[in-house]
């Protein structure tokens, strides 16, 4: 089963989503997916992985794969839903997408061994963990200015129940810009998998329902520009669409 959060006629609703990707109201009414506002399906803390695919680490000129996960944190200001808008700051050289599998935590987790870890997962969604390389500094890298920008982490469209994803370590990931395939990989190439990451994080802190673990991206980065339609897709999970806009358009609309 799939579940989502939407805004419909001014109400924020938790809904089920059918196999065709249509949200269902509690009374069974089937909604047109283009007529609702898709919200991020979870709003807890996002723990995001850097350099978690060997090919991507090589692409960024890291010679050896990391021995310990590189984890950074996002807060809810960063999220936007399916069909949402993200903005490219004026005068930057390089802003790129990152297609990532996201595990959503379903129950409080502390000191969970790897073997039990998936019991703590409610389901899976995907995100586009955009980055602006111009703003990388060598302090807490990648820093908040690169990774915790308003509306610059699309998440969704929905959460697929854990049990409907038999093997999260064998899923194809793809990114399209304006319909053209630009990135392709498989979660089989992840260095630290979901079960390992839950063990690792819960070994020193408590994870809560609604927290998310974004597991990193394979190689194949490319620049995005205002006007681009950027889709990230994971087999068996969904396809998450985002509209890139300029900084001035984004903030003009936000003021209205």
């Amino acid at each position: 089963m799939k579940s989502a959060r939407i805004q419909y006629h001014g109400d924020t609703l938790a809904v089920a989503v059918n196999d065709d990707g249509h949200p269902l109201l509690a009374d069974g009414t089937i909604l047109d997916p283009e007529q609702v506002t898709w919200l991020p399906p979870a709003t807890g803390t996002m723990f995001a992985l850097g350099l978690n695919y060997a090919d991507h680490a090589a692409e960024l000129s890291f010679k050896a794969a990391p021995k310990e996960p590189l984890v950074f944190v996002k807060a809810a200001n960063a999220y936007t839903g399916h069909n949402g808008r993200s903005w490219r700051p004026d005068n930057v050289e390089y802003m790129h997408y990152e297609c990532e599998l996201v595990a959503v935590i379903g129950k409080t987790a502390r000191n969970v061994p790897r073997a039990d870890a998936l019991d703590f997962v409610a389901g899976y969604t995907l995100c586009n963990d955009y980055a602006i390389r111009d703003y990388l500094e060598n302090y807490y890298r990648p820093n908040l200015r690169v990774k915790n920008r308003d509306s610059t982490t699309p998440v969704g469209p929905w959460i697929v129940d854990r049990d409907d994803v038999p093997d999260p370590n064998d899923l194809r990931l793809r990114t399209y810009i304006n319909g053209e395939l630009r990135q392709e990989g498989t979660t089989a190439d992840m260095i630290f998998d979901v079960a390992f990451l839950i063990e690792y994080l819960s070994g020193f802190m408590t994870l809560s329902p609604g927290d998310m673990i974004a597991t990193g991206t394979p190689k194949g980065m490319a620049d995005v520009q205002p006007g681009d339609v950027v889709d990230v897709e994971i087999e068996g999970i969904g396809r998450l669409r985002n509209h890139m806009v300029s900084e001035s358009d984004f903030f003009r609309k936000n003021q209205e």
Partner: protein
Amino acid sequence: MRHAKVEYQGRVRTVTVGPDDLPIGDDGEILDATGLRWLPASGGTLFGVALNYRGLLEARLPEFHQPPYQKPPEKPVLFIKTPNTRNAHQGTVARPQGERLQPGPALGVVIGRRASRVSEQDALDYVRGYTVVNEFSLPEDSYYRPAIKAKCRDGFCALGPWWVDRDDIANPHDLTLTLTVNGVEKQRGSTADLIWPIPRLIAELSEFMTLNAGDVLITGTPPGRVDVSEGDQVDTTIESIGTLRNLIVTDHGGEAKQ
């Protein structure tokens, strides 16, 4: 005026704080200390700023010209204290087994309303008030990678006991911070030494992140973090604001929670 969030007789209440430091309910009732539990002074996102005191940055400048840093920071060095870190006045903090634990006295700026792209000149209009923060951390050998393991442990960010209205603090950039352990002063600093003063921080952060009512900017810890251990009573005091007390306890490895 001082405001706080407390739990009293099983109910969560937002209260004012009277001259004897006891909370006063809406009806004027004084809530006595028995059965009173102080709650974290704010529930929003907690944004921290590292390396924001002059002495601290200056001491490391030679290192910051070398790899992996190459050059000193150009923007505020920010981090997030995740919600599991929230702690309160009189709350306990567990020292993780086999690790060194260090308190971090800091002035907390509580945001009062939604701030996006706010100018330095207008920034203080968006501030509700100020609170005392103890931003606990493991020692940081390096600032190169995000410090989640050092900073995001359960209970590692105490806020309170209360917040003081913005207009009651004439100059937030001239406040003395002190840390005492078991009554002995161990660390002292002044917000006069902030590298990024509060209005500049609000302008810099709100340039790319929306700040919401209840969010807190943890403006940084002065140089001289010390180690604390089990049984220590740690008091963080900021002049004109108050004293936040925490007790260090043994880490039982964190019970497996389901």
